[in-house]
C-alpha cells in the first residue's frame, strides 16, 4: 500500500504529466476554455489511463517479452489505447450527449494524447509491476485532471482581465502553462519516500 501511495503522489504532483513532462499539451490547451468541459476531459483521461495502463502491462509482460516482439510495442499499445477510447466515445455519446457535443473532435484525440502513450512507455522503461502501473496510471491521470482544471479555472478568471487583444485566448494559455510549469519545478525537491514512510506508520 505504501508503494501505491508513493507512486500515486509522485506521478500526480512531483512528476506531473503536463507540467513537468509537457505531455498531452494539445487537448490540454484546446479544451481548457471552460471548467465544465475541462472536468469532462480530465475524467475521461483518468479513466483511459487507468484502464490502458494495466492492459498494456499485461500485454508487455506476457506477450511481448516472452515472444521477443518488443518492436511491436508501439503498434500494440496504440491499438489498445485506440479501442479503449472508442469504447469511451460510445459510452459518452449514449449517456451524455451534451458532453459529447462539447468535447467534439477532442474525444477521438484522447487517443493521440501523448500522456496516454507516454504513460505506457514510461511504465515499460521504469519497470513497474502491476500494482505500481495501476497507481501510475491513476496518479498520472489525476495529475493531468488537476492541471487542466487549474488552467481552466485561471482562464475563466482571466477573461475579465484586460489582456492585449492578440494574446487573448491561446496566447495567454501558453503563458499561463509556462508559468505553471515553472511553479511545479519547485516540487521536484520533494522526496516521495516521506509519503511511503508515513503510510507505513498508518498501517
Amino acid at each position: 500500500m505504501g508503494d501505491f501511495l508513493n507512486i500515486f503522489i509522485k506521478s500526480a504532483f512531483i512528476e506531473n504529466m503536463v507540467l513537468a513532462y509537457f505531455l498531452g499539451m494539445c487537448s490540454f490547451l484546446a479544451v481548457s476554455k471552460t471548467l465544465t468541459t475541462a472536468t469532462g476531459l480530465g475524467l475521461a483521461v483518468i479513466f483511459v489511463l487507468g484502464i490502458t495502463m494495466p492492459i498494456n502491462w499485461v500485454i508487455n509482460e506476457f506477450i511481448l517479452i516472452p515472444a521477443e516482439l518488443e518492436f511491436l510495442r508501439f503498434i500494440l499499445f496504440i491499438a489498445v489505447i485506440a479501442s479503449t477510447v472508442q469504447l469511451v466515445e460510445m459510452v459518452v455519446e449514449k449517456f451524455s450527449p451534451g458532453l459529447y457535443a462539447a468535447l467534439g473532435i477532442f474525444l477521438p484525440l484522447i487517443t493521440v494524447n501523448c500522456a496516454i502513450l507516454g504513460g505506457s512507455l514510461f511504465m515499460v522503461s521504469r519497470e513497474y509491476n502491476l500494482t505500481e502501473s495501476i497507481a501510475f496510471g491513476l496518479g498520472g491521470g489525476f495529475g493531468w485532471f488537476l492541471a487542466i482544471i487549474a488552467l481552466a479555472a485561471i482562464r475563466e478568471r482571466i477573461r475579465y482581465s484586460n489582456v492585449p487583444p492578440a494574446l487573448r485566448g491561446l496566447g495567454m494559455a501558453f503563458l499561463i502553462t509556462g508559468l505553471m510549469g515553472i511553479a511545479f519545478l519547485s516540487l521536484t525537491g520533494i522526496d516521495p519516500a516521506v509519503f511511503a514512510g508515513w503510510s507505513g506508520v498508518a498501517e
Partner: protein
Amino acid sequence: MAESTEIRTGVVADPAGQEKEPLFGKKEKILITDPLLDNNPITIQVLGVCSALAVTSLVYPSLVMAVAVVFVCAFSSLFTSLMRNIIPKAVRLIVQLVIIATLVTLVNEALKVLAFPVYKQLSVYIGLIITNCIVMGRLEAFAMANKPWRSFLDGVGNGLGYGLILVAVGVVRELFGKGSLFAGSGIAMNIIGPSGDTTQYWINTAAESGIGSFFGWYANNNLMVLPAAAMFVIAVFIWIQRSYNTKLVDVS
C-alpha cells in the same frame, strides 16, 4: 468569370470535370501555403504542441523532427485517403493509427541507420510522432474526405507549417540558451560566448578588444533551456502573428 468556372469544375465529381482540374493549380497551392501562416498547426490549430516543447532546445534535432513529421504526415494522409472509402467508420481510429505507427517505425529505423546521435537525442519523441495530434487531426479533418493527391499536399503543408514553428523556436532557444546554432550537425556554429581552448565563438565575450569586448556583460539565458521556455517563445510568436493579422484574434 474564369475563376467561378474553375471552382465549379472542382466541385463537380464527374470524370469530365476531373480532366480539366490542374495537377498543381491555385487550390493546390493554397493547401501548401495556408498551413504555413494563417492556419498554422501549432499557433492557430493548437495541434502537436508536446513535441514542439521537448525537442526544440537545439536547432538540429528540431530540423530532423520537422523532416520526419513532414514525411509521416504526407504519406499517412496519402494512404488514408486512398483507403478512405473502405475504412468502416467505427474502427477508423485504429486503422489510421496502424498506418501512422507503421510509417513512424520506418522513420525510426531509417534514423537509426542514417543519424544515430540525433536518434539517441530524439528517441522517445520519434515514437511520440504516432501521438502527434497534427497527423491524426489532418487524417480526421481532411484525408478522410478528400482525394489522395490533395490529401498528400495537405499533409506536406501541415508538416511544413509545424516544422517552421519548430525550427524557429529552436533557433531562439539555442541562440539565447547556449549561444550556438546547429550544434551536433556538420555545420555547427558557435555564435556568442567566451572562447576557450576547445570552442571558438564568433563573438568572443572574453576578448579584450574588438566586437566581443562590447559583450562582456552577456550571459546565456538558462531559462531558455527549460521546456517551459518553449511555451513563452510560442506565446510571443502567437502575439506577433495575431498583432499583424487581427482576423485571427480570439474573440471569446
